């Protein structure tokens, strides 16, 4: 049956990319800050980036940069980072799961018209990371 709702995930040839709960809503909020005439183009470009990532295409530090620290697990020494799918001025913060093999989770999107990563975004990614990586939530 054809669904009238977007799907939560996309399975490429190498990775599955999953929108966390509320991620698509945050995209719709973020895109509203962009000129309306460019909405479709921005969405297309985000889709194309997700497909490249999911199909194992190499991503550049420029368009898929490391952004902030993920929460530390007990006994973990090395700090792991989350990344951003970047299409200026939209960013989709994501991380590669350790609990779910070959799976990237997109925590949320922001309209980033500022330089420094906000603490609120680090906290939001951390909260989603804990729900999924530690508490066993699906998305």
């Amino acid at each position, binding site marked *: 049956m054809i669904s009238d709702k977007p799907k939560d995930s996309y399975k490429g040839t190498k990775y599955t990319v999953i929108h966390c709960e509320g991620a698509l809503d945050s995209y719709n909020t973020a895109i509203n800050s962009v000129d309306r005439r460019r909405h479709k*183009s921005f969405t297309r470009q985000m889709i194309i980036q997700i497909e490249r990532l999911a199909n194992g295409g190499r991503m*550049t530090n420029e368009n898929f940069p490391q952004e902030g620290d993920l929460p530390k697990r007990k006994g973990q020494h090395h700090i792991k980072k989350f990344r951003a799918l970047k299409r200026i001025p939209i960013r989709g913060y994501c991380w590669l799961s350790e609990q779910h093999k070959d799976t990237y989770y997109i925590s949320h999107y922001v309209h980033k018209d500022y330089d420094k990563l906000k603490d609120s975004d680090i906290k939001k990614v951390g909260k989603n990371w804990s729900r999924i990586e530690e508490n066993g939530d699906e998305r």
Partner: protein
Amino acid sequence: MSAKDMFYPESKEFSSAEERAFAREELVYNVTEDVLVALEDLDVTKKELARRLGKSRSFVTQVLSGARNMTLGTLSDICFSIGAKPKITFTIESSEQGRDFHWENENTYTDLKRDDFIQQYENIIDCRDHPAWENQAA
């Protein structure tokens, strides 16, 4: 399936113009991203690339962000300046019309389920069913 389904309902139908825009932006993104990957691997900055090309830094930034159209000439110049040789491959996607012509292709024909094929195409007469054949011929 495409990642479009993560942003749009499955029932959403895209116009031919929208599909064309997707194809265009996909090519632009993947080519510019591949160039950026090569630059990162070779440790060539945009500033250095601009110097090698004899162009401004902003020209390089615009071309590699997709904001400015990259001509094949510019792509060739970029590749030459970093000692890379681009490879371009065309993959022809089969269309419904294209499938009709596969009828002449013995391998394709034998790979299909014959009954499904006959039912699928109204202009094919099933010669194994003689009465029906004679009726249609009449």
